């Protein structure tokens, strides 16, 4: 049954390749892409259920034993993130035909979309740090293709920045892995975790840890390194933005979560450093969100404080905080995708992204309006919704370890996030009817709303069903705090 761990990688890969052959029959491609994505979601859901029942699955690729070969490790954390990824993917694939132009779809959109899913799922599932780099590359290659899709002027300008910064961080990543290998002599994460404790000179390991953090921080857009993110995530089509915003930064966070709860756990100074970075990330991100009138840019900036919250959990480093991070990670993937899709729909229907030029959307598209309000509440963490539970866990952990300043920063940030989104709601949806600015197209609006409703439904379920989901998050937190379980399940000693 160990082959189950490879299926979330193989199915999208094969689907992506298959769609190249059908390139000239766009209607077939659209239907097939939907069917394959749904099929993949079903398979991943089954795997998640299987792991929930039977525990971690490890796959030793090619039958090579664990420390020598490449392992894929599907534990509860990985599979939940893969499941969420596929949920976002389903929404994106249903949204894509109405948002993309025919020409854009024709440039192999669906192929690259599936390759992106392959890369993201692979990065979540791998148990080998060099293989993590490989899947990062798969994911980034697909994202380079997706970001220039269509080739508008702004897109080309932003994508060159995006490509350069990611190439730089990839070079740094592979160099760091080489460093680590020269010091510890392995790239298997479980064996790394064992051997790091035995290394005499901790100084060089701390250097490597900081290099890793730097690499992942570029991908995850942490405080000093987020400057490239908002503009380049706004440039492409809303579907692509939603995939990027929901998946790419979260892969960076997942890598930090994995590496710094499994391998580099001996240095408390590092955790102190994380907490400060988290505070600064939250504040600067939310200030960015308040500083602009471009509705897409507001959402893109809102990625950054969310990343700050998750890093805060890793910095606090106790069971409650890690559970909170996991909860927040899943919540944020869903809600960011939903918000990007919603704002993309608004921008498409209004024909502009300027906050001040859109008025009275509520009169024409009431469903869209109420959905946006709901998404705002979910993101800002109004009680029964999922954002609240993640934040509650994180702030509780913060208070428990007497870090009042960071808790206050967190609360202020939550409030400002609410403010930044309410600005959009009040400006665009509320207010007088403005019939001249845009033509009303209810048909198109309906197509846009369906995927968003799907995502928001799961988001609300995640919040209201916290009774059911919280124990899972808690067990993942417990699991991450005890790296021995992971090591045992991979090395089988």
């Amino acid at each position, binding site marked *: 049954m*160990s*082959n189950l761990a*490879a299926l979330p990688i*193989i199915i999208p*890969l*094969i689907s992506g*390749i*298959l769609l*190249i*052959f059908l*390139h000239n029959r766009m209607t077939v491609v659209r239907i097939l892409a939907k069917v394959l994505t749904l099929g993949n979601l079903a398979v991943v859901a089954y795997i998640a259920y299987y792991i929930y029942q039977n525990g971690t699955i490890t*796959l*030793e*690729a*090619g*039958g090579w034993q664990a420390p020598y070969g490449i392992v*894929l490790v599907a534990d509860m954390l990985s599979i939940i993130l893969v499941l969420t990824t596929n949920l976002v993917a389903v929404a994106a694939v249903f949204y894509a035909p109405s948002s993309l132009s025919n020409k854009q779809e024709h440039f192999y959109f669906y192929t690259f979309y599936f390759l992106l899913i392959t890369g993201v799922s692979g990065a979540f599932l791998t148990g080998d740090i060099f293989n993590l780099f490989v899947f990062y590359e798969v994911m980034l290659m697909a994202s380079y293709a997706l970001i220039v899709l269509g080739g508008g002027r702004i897109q080309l300008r932003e994508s060159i920045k995006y490509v350069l910064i990611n190439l730089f961080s990839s070079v740094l990543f592979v160099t760091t892995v080489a460093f680590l290998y020269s010091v510890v002599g392995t790239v298997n994460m479980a064996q790394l975790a064992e051997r790091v404790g035995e290394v005499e000179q901790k100084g060089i390991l701390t250097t490597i840890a900081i290099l890793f953090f730097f690499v992942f921080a570029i991908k995850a857009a942490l405080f000093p390194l987020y400057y490239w993110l908002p503009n380049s995530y706004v440039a492409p089509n809303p579907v692509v933005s939603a995939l990027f915003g929901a998946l790419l930064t979260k892969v960076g966070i997942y890598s930090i979560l994995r590496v710094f709860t499994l391998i580099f756990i001996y240095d408390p100074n590092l955790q102190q450093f994380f907490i400060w970075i988290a505070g600064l990330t939250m504040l600067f991100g939310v200030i960015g969100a308040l500083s602009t009138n471009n509705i897409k840019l507001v959402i893109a900036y809102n990625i950054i404080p969310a990343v700050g919250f998750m890093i805060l959990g890793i910095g606090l480093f106790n069971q409650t905080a890690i559970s909170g991070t996991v909860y927040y990670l899943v919540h944020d993937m869903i809600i960011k995708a939903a918000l990007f899709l919603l704002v993309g729909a608004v921008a498409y229907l209004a024909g502009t992204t300027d906050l001040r030029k859109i008025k009275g959307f509520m009169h024409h598209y009431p469903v869209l309006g109420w959905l946006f309000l709901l998404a705002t509440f979910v993101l800002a963490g109004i009680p029964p919704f999922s954002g609240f539970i993640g934040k509650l866990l994180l702030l509780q952990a913060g208070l428990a370890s007497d870090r009042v300043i960071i808790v206050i920063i967190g609360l202020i940030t939550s409030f400002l996030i609410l403010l930044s989104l309410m600005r959009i709601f009040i400006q665009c949806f509320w207010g007088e009817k403005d019939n001249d600015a845009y033509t009303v197209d209810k048909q198109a609006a309906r197509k846009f709303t369906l995927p968003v409703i799907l995502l928001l439904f799961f988001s609300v379920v995640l919040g209201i069903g916290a009774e059911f989901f919280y124990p899972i998050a808690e067990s993942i937190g417990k699991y991450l705090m005890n790296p021995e379980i992971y090591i045992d399940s991979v090395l089988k000693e």
Partner: protein
Amino acid sequence: MSRPNDLILRSTTSLIAFILFGFSIYLYFAGHNAPGGGFIAGLMVSSAIVLMYMAYGFEAVNKILPINYRYCTAIGLMIAVLTGVGSFFFGEPFLSHTFGYLYIPFFGNKELATAMLFDLGVYITVLGITMTIILSIADDR
């Protein structure tokens, strides 16, 4: 004004291109235990095709090699993935490979590995990707 003709280039190409095809096949089969393999063999075959394009131009080569290199990439990837998936049917982990010995006339008893099929996928993928890149850069209209 007399147009320069590429007599030497054309006549050497007809010879060298086939040497390159042969060399690429040699590299592909050498790849299991020695330097070589699908990747470099794919590069060789694509350099042979590029040489033909340089000597004879788009129209002529498109006529004799009517291949859509994008499909070529897809076919190669498909072969590579399916050889990995093939191990599922034998209950082995993903990407498992095996080998056996086979008697081939004239060559004697040779080792054949399923890893070679994976390499064939790499070969075709590299050929497809390289040709797609070169032709789309060279196509200036």
